[in-house]
């Protein structure tokens, strides 16, 4: 009864249920701090909502999608049952338990510290323990991905690991290592204070630990999206993947350069030296490499499909693409948002330009466009693509799916473009109340109102998404043909050991982390007098 289909479905349903609730909170937040709403008179309610929204959207939703999709890819690409099914259920149970443990104190107003924790703010210990449980549950998945790949390699000596599995394992390793930063912060800095064992906290060191996690977590969110670009899109539109090796190199590059770059989130932090900020800035720029490799490979793959369908001319082939196919449409819309979001990211990663937008609404607009836009729209596409294989029932409302993807795209643009704009005008982030009657910021009222409209469109889109999935769950049974991933133009017969395993790349990832983080962490640990009194939240009298 407890087969892997149910297990994957459980992951995805819990993920999307959390997403739906957190999305509603996000829309409410956008509304109450807009000029359309009278001030709610209690900023604590706003921060409570922001904490629940961020915790669910950043830790629970993408982690469960990556886990569920990862298990699915393992079985389908290795063509054999998942090893460790019961462990997968245990990992899932830990994530569910952790989510509940974290959200209950947030809902009670005892941990309104926002999902990035913001030490020296300290809330209810149960919140942090819940987050740790979510991470531990996801580490079960990391281990299972690794075990499944190495068992398969042992049973198939010399054979290339199927690319979807290779990419999934890369994503799992990236997460396994990047989560260590936040885990160190929680276990050694915040939780002892939250439990009352210590009164002070080294906020600067804690922020450096969190930056270890904070940037690569975005690439972990991105991994299912990129895997879908490479392994679902070319097959879904009747083409082939342009290059298997190029894909492997892109994922390897993500593994190495996405990790030790997080201090660009701490450009304004005085406790980190300017030299390390520069070093992290340089490696952040290198993330453009795997991104551009992906853009090239996917565009080439799509062009192959278009020409196979009779497309002609320098750009005329674009019209030969199956635009009515939700996978094609979703990937194209994702690329557009990735382009805009990436361009904005170039500003955030450069030291001087960042100073103009630091801690403004620009940053919030940026990560909503990248994560909520480019990444999450592909989560929808993944769900549409694999749902029939999980439920044994067809998803046949293609029109509804297209409407859902379009509304998500339009909603996200209408939400985030004005959001970027008010950021440039200097509107600070993480504030609960804006006095739009003041002439200094009255001009921003129209832009914020536009963002509220965007948020409302996103809520409509999410409703459509659930309608499609629920209808798929209740449709008559129709067992689909065997699931296939994209096949490369030249499928690899044998590969250099370096492209068929991770030993070298994990070594480089850890080595580069030590180079980029070792000294700042050791220095802060060794510097006396850097701890400050903790500020407890949620203790009203």
């Amino acid at each position: 009864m407890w087969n892997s289909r149910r297990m994957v479905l459980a992951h995805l349903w819990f993920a999307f249920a959390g997403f739906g609730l957190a999305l509603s909170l996000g829309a409410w937040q956008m509304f109450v701090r807009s000029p359309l709403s009278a001030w709610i008179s209690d900023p604590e309610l706003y921060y409570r909502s922001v904490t629940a929204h961020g915790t669910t959207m950043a830790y629970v939703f993408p982690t469960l999608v990556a886990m569920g999709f990862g298990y699915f890819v393992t079985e389908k690409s290795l063509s054999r049952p998942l090893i460790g099914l019961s462990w997968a259920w245990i990992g899932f149970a830990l994530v569910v338990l952790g989510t509940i443990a974290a959200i209950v104190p947030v809902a009670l107003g005892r941990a309104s510290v926002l999902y990035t924790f913001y030490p020296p703010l300290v809330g209810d210990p149960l919140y942090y323990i819940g987050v740790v449980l979510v991470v531990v549950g996801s580490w079960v998945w990391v281990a299972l991905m690794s075990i499944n790949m190495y068992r398969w390699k042992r049973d198939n000596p010399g054979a290339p690991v199927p690319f979807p599995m290779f990419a999934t394992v890369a994503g799992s390793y990236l997460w396994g290592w990047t989560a260590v930063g936040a885990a160190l912060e929680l276990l050694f800095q915040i939780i002892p204070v939250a439990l009352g064992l210590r009164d002070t906290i080294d906020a600067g060191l804690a922020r450096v630990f969190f930056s270890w996690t904070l940037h690569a977590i975005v690439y972990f969110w991105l991994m299912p999206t990129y895997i879908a670009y490479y392994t679902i899109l070319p097959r879904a539109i009747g083409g082939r993947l342009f290059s298997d090796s190029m894909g492997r190199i892109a994922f390897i590059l993500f593994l190495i350069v996405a990790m030790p770059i997080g201090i660009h989130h701490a450009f304004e932090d005085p406790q980190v030296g300017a030299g390390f900020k520069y070093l992290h800035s340089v490696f952040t720029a290198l993330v453009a490499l795997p991104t551009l490799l992906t853009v090239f490979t996917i565009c080439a793959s799509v062009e192959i499909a278009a020409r196979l369908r009779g497309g002609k001319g320098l750009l005329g082939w674009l019209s030969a693409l199956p635009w009515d196919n939700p996978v094609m449409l979703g990937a194209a819309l994702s690329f557009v948002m990735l382009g805009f979001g990436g361009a904005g990211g170039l500003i955030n990663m450069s030291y001087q330009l960042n100073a103009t937008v630091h801690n403004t609404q620009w940053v919030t607009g940026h990560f909503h466009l990248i994560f909520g836009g480019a990444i999450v729209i592909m989560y929808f596409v993944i769900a549409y693509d694999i749902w029939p294989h999980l439920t044994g029932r067809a998803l046949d409302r293609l029109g509804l799916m297209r409407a859902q993807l379009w509304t998500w795209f339009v909603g996200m643009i209408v939400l985030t473009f004005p959001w970027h704009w008010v950021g440039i005008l200097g509107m600070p982030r993480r504030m609960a109340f804006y006095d739009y009657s003041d002439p200094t910021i009255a001009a921003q009222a129209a832009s914020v109102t536009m963002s509220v409209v965007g948020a409302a469109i996103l809520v409509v889109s999410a409703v459509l998404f659930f309608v499609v999935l629920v209808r798929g769950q209740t449709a008559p049974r129709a067992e689909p043909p065997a699931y296939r991933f994209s096949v490369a133009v030249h499928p690899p017969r044998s590969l250099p050991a370096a492209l068929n395993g991770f030993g070298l790349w994990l070594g480089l990832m850890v080595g580069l982390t030590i180079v980029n983080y070792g000294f700042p962490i050791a220095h802060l640990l060794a510097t006396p007098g850097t701890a400050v009194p903790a500020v407890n939240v949620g203790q009203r009298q």
Partner: protein
Amino acid sequence: MSGDRIVSLHNPWFTASVGITAAIAIIAAVAGFAWLPLQQQGERFDGIWDAICSAAGLVRNAPSASQIVGANYLTTNVEVVPQMLQGASAESIGRGATLALRCTMCHGARGLSQADTPNLAGEYPITIYKELVDFKTSARASAVMAPLVADLRDADMRDLAAYYAYLPRPPDLRATSDVPPRIVANGAPMRGIAPCGACHGELDSKPGAAWLEGQPAIYLRTQLAAFASGARRNDIGEQMRNIARRMTPDEIAAASRFYADRP
């Protein structure tokens, strides 16, 4: 092919990937730690090693030209942390009750009075303790309080704080529909004024900030005026002076009346 040794100088994947990564890191480090710091205008380094240490984030001595300027008035010497004065013993409260006999003339037998002096019943212990210390060190000036605290020891002031914190606050008799004025609920963000309630208990409590409900309006108004004029300056970090200076007389009156009207 998969049987190749990965970590080997004969493996081009190993030499190229490690070599390129190391080269990028070294070039970036030379630029970030040596070349760029030395290009900075206005930075004075004692040689390249000093520049490297600065870029690495090592704590360096401030240039001798910029001396730390001290305040030319007495400042509070109480270091307020949220965890202080928690869990007072019954003995401490009892000693405080005895010591408080000298306070009853103005502050009432049980910490409540009609004399336009602050009501102390149920006040946060950190607040009571800090104000007593400040009166004693003259960081807060008061001709009435100064002689009364002159002979108090630190332990006495802790006991007094424990006693008044132990007394019950007067019950809230106001309707919850009572709408606070804008300055209390919202502050004035564009003038850098946080809502009063963000520190004084309506929305959140900050250590050192007093619980204001039921305090005499004239006392609150006088204190805000004293903060605004600089006559009172024992607020750590100058937060009350900055707020009071930017408040209009109407806002001061509205906030004082609101808190005073609350029992």
